[in-house]
């Protein structure tokens, strides 16, 4: 019988991921540079003044999530691919429970997303002149969106990790899964920008939480099969 708990194993995996990432900075650099480059390109080409006033709520919300999603895609897929590439996956398979691996990787992706959001969102608001009325609503939406996006990305990353051309496959597989999520997040962001009340973003928030929750529950059952077989 194991003396360790699932929580301590998950935290061990998370700790290992953070230490390895802080030393190699591969995912951080990929996500940060992709996000910054896209943001600067959008800000340079469009900026705060080249959008008609009536189009601003729709376009600014959509552009924000396009930048966040594609920047995240460049880093989130790596969590399992790097284990396969470095031949550490088999060592990890033998030592850790599948759920601990999933939880540790999910938490790592969540932290990566939080760092990306903390870096990009204020810059985007400043460069694009995006005045958000409901800052708390947006923060809540970003938090729930990060959980849902991290759960989906971690699961898809596990599925594609043993395939060749895994980066392309990650985009192909994750886009249909993430698309409904993105639509809800864009709608919620638009609502948060125009209203200070949480009620305005509630429908979108409910959708994001449902989708994120469903993905997490499915992952708990599906991941051990994907990881070992």
């Amino acid at each position, binding site marked *: 019988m*194991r003396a360790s708990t699932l929580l*301590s194993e998950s935290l061990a995996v998370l700790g*290992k991921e953070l*230490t390895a990432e802080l*030393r190699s900075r591969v995912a951080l650099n990929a996500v940060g540079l992709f996000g910054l480059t896209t943001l600067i390109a959008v800000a340079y080409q469009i900026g705060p003044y080249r959008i008609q006033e009536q189009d601003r709520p729709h376009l600014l919300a959509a552009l924000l999530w396009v930048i966040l999603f594609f920047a995240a895609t460049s880093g989130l897929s790596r969590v399992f691919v790097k284990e396969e590439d470095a031949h550490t996956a088999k*060592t990890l*398979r033998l*030592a850790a429970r599948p759920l601990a691996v999933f939880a540790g990787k999910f938490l790592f992706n969540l932290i990566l997303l939080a760092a990306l959001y903390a870096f990009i969102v204020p810059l985007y608001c400043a460069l694009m002149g995006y005045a958000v009325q409901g800052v708390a609503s947006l923060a809540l939406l970003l938090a729930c969106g990060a959980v849902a996006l991290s759960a989906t990305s971690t699961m898809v990353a596990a599925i594609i990790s043993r395939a060749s051309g895994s980066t392309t496959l990650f985009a192909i597989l994750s886009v249909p899964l993430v698309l409904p999520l993105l639509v809800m997040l864009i709608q919620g962001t638009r609502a948060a920008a125009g209203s200070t009340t949480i009620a305005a973003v509630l429908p979108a928030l409910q959708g994001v939480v449902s989708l994120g929750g469903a993905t997490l529950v499915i992952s708990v059952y599906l991941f051990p099969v994907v990881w070992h*077989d």
Partner: protein
Amino acid sequence: MSAVSVEFKGVSKRFGNRSVLAAVSGTLQRGRVLVVAGPNGAGKSTLLNILAGLLRPSRGEVVYRNGDAPLARTHWFEHLGMAAPDMAVYEELSALENLRFFARLRGLHLEDPTLQELLDGLGLPPREHTRTVGTYSSGMRQRVKLAQAILHEPPVLLLDEPSSNLDEAGHGVVADLVARFRELAAVAVATNDPREMTWADARIDLAL
């Protein structure tokens, strides 16, 4: 250390149309070293992966027993240590950090001096314990891989080409390790090395 035995019967493996193993049977038990020999491509690593539960056989079965009680496949890994050429430890971490990580995953509360003693015993000089594995030679990496395999003193130890990348001193370290675990665990060694074949209490010769 509990007495876990592994029995495998009629194990076959096909990858597409290619048959890699055909009806291989045997037993791993404490006090005996099973050597799996054969030329490259004969299926030695495949057999060890099947015994570890990392691959499912196309035919046949593998049964782990703790005493007389069969163990569910989901519990095999807890009783198993393995080192193989296609297994690595984390390059971004030091040897000590790797062992701390694997110890924590296995629920072991081992202090650094214990881990350092393990690394010393496998011939990794103390000054290397805190350097990242990415800076190691292949022989030093092999010693860390062996350390993670025996860290939890597993009752089943699977070693695939354990002396690969090691010098003569390293070969001696592995020979000592196998001799020690022969008394404690069920050991299987996949090898082409004639010196390692002399460790055998039982032997399976695989052909192409």
